[in-house]
Protein backbone atom coordinates (compact mmCIF):
# COMPACT_ATOMS: atom_id res chain seq x y z
CA UNK A 1 0.00 0.00 0.00
CA UNK A 2 1.24 3.45 -0.87
CA UNK A 3 1.21 5.79 2.08
CA UNK A 4 2.55 8.76 0.16
CA UNK A 5 -0.28 10.98 1.33
CA UNK A 6 -1.46 9.02 4.28
CA UNK A 7 0.30 10.40 7.32
CA UNK A 8 -0.72 13.59 9.00
CA UNK A 9 2.06 16.18 8.98
CA UNK A 10 4.21 16.37 12.04
CA UNK A 11 7.16 14.37 13.24
CA UNK A 12 6.22 11.26 15.08
CA UNK A 13 2.49 11.81 14.78
CA UNK A 14 2.00 8.58 12.89
CA UNK A 15 -1.70 9.32 12.46
CA UNK A 16 -3.35 8.48 9.18
CA UNK A 17 -5.64 11.11 7.74
CA UNK A 18 -9.32 10.29 7.83
CA UNK A 19 -11.68 11.12 4.99
CA UNK A 20 -15.46 10.91 4.87
CA UNK A 21 -16.95 10.24 1.43
CA UNK A 22 -20.65 11.04 0.91
CA UNK A 23 -22.42 9.76 -2.21
CA UNK A 24 -25.73 8.08 -2.89
CA UNK A 25 -24.20 5.83 -5.56
CA UNK A 26 -22.99 2.71 -3.77
CA UNK A 27 -20.52 1.78 -6.50
CA UNK A 28 -19.00 5.24 -6.66
CA UNK A 29 -18.61 5.10 -2.88
CA UNK A 30 -16.76 1.80 -3.23
CA UNK A 31 -14.48 3.13 -5.96
CA UNK A 32 -13.69 6.29 -4.02
CA UNK A 33 -13.03 4.37 -0.82
CA UNK A 34 -10.80 1.89 -2.59
CA UNK A 35 -8.90 4.67 -4.35
CA UNK A 36 -8.38 6.85 -1.29
CA UNK A 37 -7.38 3.92 0.92
CA UNK A 38 -5.29 1.87 -1.47
CA UNK A 39 -3.67 4.61 -3.52
CA UNK A 40 -3.87 7.52 -1.09
CA UNK A 41 -3.16 5.56 2.06
CA UNK A 42 -5.91 7.32 3.98
CA UNK A 43 -8.56 5.94 6.28
CA UNK A 44 -12.01 6.29 4.72
CA UNK A 45 -15.54 6.16 6.08
CA UNK A 46 -18.61 6.51 3.91
CA UNK A 47 -22.15 7.81 4.05
CA UNK A 48 -24.88 7.10 1.52
CA UNK A 49 -26.73 10.37 1.86
CA UNK A 50 -26.63 13.96 3.05
CA UNK A 51 -28.17 13.55 6.50
CA UNK A 52 -26.11 10.45 7.24
CA UNK A 53 -23.04 12.39 6.13
CA UNK A 54 -23.83 15.28 8.46
CA UNK A 55 -24.28 12.91 11.39
CA UNK A 56 -21.09 11.03 10.64
CA UNK A 57 -19.09 14.21 10.14
CA UNK A 58 -20.18 15.56 13.50
CA UNK A 59 -19.44 12.28 15.25
CA UNK A 60 -16.13 11.42 13.58
CA UNK A 61 -14.74 14.86 12.68
CA UNK A 62 -12.73 13.62 9.71
CA UNK A 63 -9.78 15.55 8.28
CA UNK A 64 -11.68 16.13 5.02
CA UNK A 65 -14.99 15.39 3.34
CA UNK A 66 -15.46 14.41 -0.29
CA UNK A 67 -19.07 14.72 -1.34
CA UNK A 68 -21.37 14.27 -4.32
CA UNK A 69 -23.45 17.26 -5.39
CA UNK A 70 -26.69 15.73 -6.66
CA UNK A 71 -28.17 13.42 -4.05
CA UNK A 72 -31.80 12.68 -3.25
CA UNK A 73 -33.09 14.31 -0.09
CA UNK A 74 -30.35 16.60 1.15
CA UNK A 75 -28.04 17.50 -1.73
CA UNK A 76 -24.35 18.36 -1.54
CA UNK A 77 -24.65 22.15 -1.47
CA UNK A 78 -27.18 21.93 1.37
CA UNK A 79 -24.88 19.62 3.31
CA UNK A 80 -21.91 21.93 2.72
CA UNK A 81 -23.79 24.88 4.18
CA UNK A 82 -24.99 22.81 7.13
CA UNK A 83 -21.47 21.59 7.84
CA UNK A 84 -20.21 25.17 7.90
CA UNK A 85 -23.02 26.24 10.22
CA UNK A 86 -22.22 23.58 12.82
CA UNK A 87 -19.25 24.53 15.04
CA UNK A 88 -18.36 20.83 15.32
CA UNK A 89 -17.81 20.53 11.57
CA UNK A 90 -17.25 24.11 10.40
CA UNK A 91 -13.49 23.72 10.02
CA UNK A 92 -13.54 20.45 8.08
CA UNK A 93 -12.50 21.08 4.46
CA UNK A 94 -15.08 19.91 1.93
CA UNK A 95 -14.42 18.91 -1.68
CA UNK A 96 -17.31 18.34 -4.07
CA UNK A 97 -17.25 15.49 -6.53
CA UNK A 98 -19.67 15.91 -9.39
CA UNK A 99 -20.47 15.02 -12.96
CA UNK A 100 -21.65 18.57 -13.38
CA UNK A 101 -18.48 20.17 -14.68
CA UNK A 102 -19.58 22.94 -17.03
CA UNK A 103 -17.71 26.16 -16.34
CA UNK A 104 -20.71 28.17 -15.15
CA UNK A 105 -21.77 25.38 -12.82
CA UNK A 106 -18.28 25.07 -11.41
CA UNK A 107 -18.30 28.77 -10.63
CA UNK A 108 -21.66 28.43 -8.85
CA UNK A 109 -20.42 25.47 -6.83
CA UNK A 110 -17.21 27.28 -5.95
CA UNK A 111 -19.29 29.94 -4.18
CA UNK A 112 -20.24 27.33 -1.63
CA UNK A 113 -18.16 26.89 1.53
CA UNK A 114 -15.97 24.27 -0.11
CA UNK A 115 -12.28 23.94 -0.91
CA UNK A 116 -12.87 22.93 -4.50
CA UNK A 117 -14.64 20.74 -7.02
CA UNK A 118 -13.44 17.52 -8.63
CA UNK A 119 -15.14 16.04 -11.68
CA UNK A 120 -16.78 12.72 -12.35
CA UNK A 121 -15.83 10.50 -13.97
CA UNK A 122 -12.61 10.18 -12.04
CA UNK A 123 -9.61 7.92 -12.35
CA UNK A 124 -9.08 6.01 -9.08
CA UNK A 125 -5.33 6.11 -9.59
CA UNK A 126 -5.37 9.91 -9.86
CA UNK A 127 -8.11 10.93 -7.44
CA UNK A 128 -5.93 10.97 -4.29
CA UNK A 129 -3.34 13.19 -5.93
CA UNK A 130 -5.99 15.61 -7.17
CA UNK A 131 -7.62 15.69 -3.76
CA UNK A 132 -4.30 16.21 -1.98
CA UNK A 133 -3.52 19.12 -4.29
CA UNK A 134 -6.85 20.80 -3.49
CA UNK A 135 -6.38 20.28 0.23
CA UNK A 136 -2.75 21.36 0.26
CA UNK A 137 -1.67 18.02 1.64
CA UNK A 138 1.90 17.31 0.65
Amino acid at each position, binding site marked *: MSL*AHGLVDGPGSGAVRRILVIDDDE*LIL*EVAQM*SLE*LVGGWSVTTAAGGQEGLDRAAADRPDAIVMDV*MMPGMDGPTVAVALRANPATAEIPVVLLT*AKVQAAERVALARLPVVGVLG*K*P*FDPMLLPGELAALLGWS
Partner: protein
Amino acid sequence: MAGGAGGADERAVADVMAVLRARSVATNLNRIEVIAGALEAMRDGVLDEKVRAQARSAAHSLAGSAGTFGFRRASELARGLESLLSGGGDFTQGAQQGLERVDELRAALAVSAFPAAEPGAASADREPQ
Protein backbone atom coordinates in the same frame (compact mmCIF):
# COMPACT_ATOMS: atom_id res chain seq x y z
CA MET B 1 2.17 11.48 -5.23
CA ALA B 2 -0.65 9.05 -5.31
CA GLY B 3 -0.59 8.80 -9.09
CA GLY B 4 2.89 7.37 -8.77
CA ALA B 5 1.76 4.45 -6.62
CA GLY B 6 3.62 1.25 -7.24
CA GLY B 7 2.69 -1.52 -9.64
CA ALA B 8 1.17 -3.62 -6.89
CA ASP B 9 -1.28 -0.84 -6.08
CA GLU B 10 -2.14 -0.41 -9.72
CA ARG B 11 -2.83 -4.12 -10.12
CA ALA B 12 -4.97 -4.21 -7.00
CA VAL B 13 -6.95 -1.17 -8.14
CA ALA B 14 -7.48 -2.73 -11.57
CA ASP B 15 -8.73 -5.95 -10.00
CA VAL B 16 -11.24 -4.17 -7.79
CA MET B 17 -12.34 -1.94 -10.66
CA ALA B 18 -13.03 -4.96 -12.86
CA VAL B 19 -15.41 -6.38 -10.26
CA LEU B 20 -17.15 -3.05 -9.64
CA ARG B 21 -17.34 -2.39 -13.39
CA ALA B 22 -19.26 -5.58 -13.93
CA ARG B 23 -21.64 -4.71 -11.09
CA SER B 24 -22.14 -1.22 -12.49
CA VAL B 25 -23.71 -2.52 -15.69
CA ALA B 26 -26.83 -3.83 -13.98
CA THR B 27 -27.20 -0.65 -11.94
CA ASN B 28 -26.84 1.52 -15.01
CA LEU B 29 -29.23 -0.57 -17.08
CA ASN B 30 -31.85 0.04 -14.38
CA ARG B 31 -31.14 3.77 -14.64
CA ILE B 32 -31.66 3.57 -18.40
CA GLU B 33 -35.11 2.11 -17.86
CA VAL B 34 -36.02 5.06 -15.62
CA ILE B 35 -34.83 7.44 -18.32
CA ALA B 36 -36.66 5.55 -21.07
CA GLY B 37 -39.91 5.63 -19.12
CA ALA B 38 -39.66 9.39 -18.70
CA LEU B 39 -38.86 9.93 -22.36
CA GLU B 40 -41.83 7.83 -23.42
CA ALA B 41 -44.04 9.91 -21.15
CA MET B 42 -42.44 13.06 -22.58
CA ARG B 43 -43.10 11.87 -26.12
CA ASP B 44 -46.73 11.16 -25.22
CA GLY B 45 -47.13 14.51 -23.49
CA VAL B 46 -47.83 13.05 -20.07
CA LEU B 47 -44.53 13.59 -18.29
CA ASP B 48 -44.92 14.95 -14.78
CA GLU B 49 -42.26 16.87 -12.92
CA LYS B 50 -41.50 14.15 -10.39
CA VAL B 51 -40.77 11.58 -13.08
CA ARG B 52 -38.69 14.09 -15.01
CA ALA B 53 -36.62 14.85 -11.91
CA GLN B 54 -36.07 11.15 -11.21
CA ALA B 55 -34.99 10.54 -14.79
CA ARG B 56 -32.68 13.53 -14.80
CA SER B 57 -31.08 12.29 -11.59
CA ALA B 58 -30.71 8.83 -13.13
CA ALA B 59 -29.04 10.29 -16.21
CA HIS B 60 -26.73 12.38 -14.04
CA SER B 61 -25.70 9.38 -11.96
CA LEU B 62 -25.31 7.24 -15.04
CA ALA B 63 -23.00 9.80 -16.66
CA GLY B 64 -20.68 9.81 -13.67
CA SER B 65 -20.80 6.09 -13.04
CA ALA B 66 -20.39 4.98 -16.65
CA GLY B 67 -17.47 7.31 -17.17
CA THR B 68 -15.74 6.22 -13.98
CA PHE B 69 -16.00 2.60 -15.09
CA GLY B 70 -14.67 3.34 -18.57
CA PHE B 71 -17.91 3.42 -20.56
CA ARG B 72 -17.00 6.67 -22.26
CA ARG B 73 -19.66 6.64 -24.98
CA ALA B 74 -22.37 5.70 -22.51
CA SER B 75 -21.28 8.58 -20.27
CA GLU B 76 -21.49 11.05 -23.15
CA LEU B 77 -24.94 9.83 -24.13
CA ALA B 78 -26.15 10.06 -20.55
CA ARG B 79 -24.93 13.63 -20.30
CA GLY B 80 -26.97 14.48 -23.40
CA LEU B 81 -30.03 12.87 -21.90
CA GLU B 82 -29.53 14.70 -18.63
CA SER B 83 -29.48 17.95 -20.59
CA LEU B 84 -32.63 16.97 -22.47
CA LEU B 85 -34.40 16.10 -19.24
CA SER B 86 -33.31 19.35 -17.61
CA GLY B 87 -35.37 21.46 -19.98
CA GLY B 88 -38.99 22.47 -19.66
CA GLY B 89 -41.93 22.70 -22.01
CA ASP B 90 -43.04 20.39 -24.80
CA PHE B 91 -40.24 18.18 -26.04
CA THR B 92 -42.10 15.69 -28.20
CA GLN B 93 -39.46 15.71 -30.92
CA GLY B 94 -36.62 15.81 -28.41
CA ALA B 95 -38.13 12.85 -26.63
CA GLN B 96 -38.03 10.77 -29.80
CA GLN B 97 -34.39 11.64 -30.30
CA GLY B 98 -33.77 10.85 -26.67
CA LEU B 99 -35.32 7.40 -27.05
CA GLU B 100 -32.97 6.74 -29.95
CA ARG B 101 -30.08 7.75 -27.69
CA VAL B 102 -31.41 5.35 -25.07
CA ASP B 103 -31.12 2.49 -27.54
CA GLU B 104 -27.56 3.56 -28.30
CA LEU B 105 -26.88 3.82 -24.59
CA ARG B 106 -28.02 0.24 -23.97
CA ALA B 107 -25.76 -0.91 -26.79
CA ALA B 108 -22.80 1.09 -25.46
CA LEU B 109 -23.09 -0.56 -22.07
CA ALA B 110 -23.59 -4.02 -23.57
CA VAL B 111 -20.54 -3.80 -25.83
CA SER B 112 -18.27 -2.24 -23.27
CA ALA B 113 -19.34 -4.69 -20.59
CA PHE B 114 -17.24 -7.37 -22.21
CA PRO B 115 -13.90 -5.73 -22.93
CA ALA B 116 -12.22 -9.10 -23.19
CA ALA B 117 -14.09 -9.63 -26.46
CA GLU B 118 -12.58 -6.45 -27.79
CA PRO B 119 -8.81 -6.35 -27.17
CA GLY B 120 -7.81 -3.04 -25.64
CA ALA B 121 -11.38 -1.86 -25.27
CA ALA B 122 -11.22 -1.39 -21.52
CA SER B 123 -8.32 1.04 -21.62
CA ALA B 124 -9.26 2.64 -24.93
CA ASP B 125 -12.74 3.37 -23.66
CA ARG B 126 -11.41 5.22 -20.62
CA GLU B 127 -12.30 8.87 -20.74
CA PRO B 128 -9.26 11.11 -20.84
CA GLN B 129 -8.73 12.93 -17.54
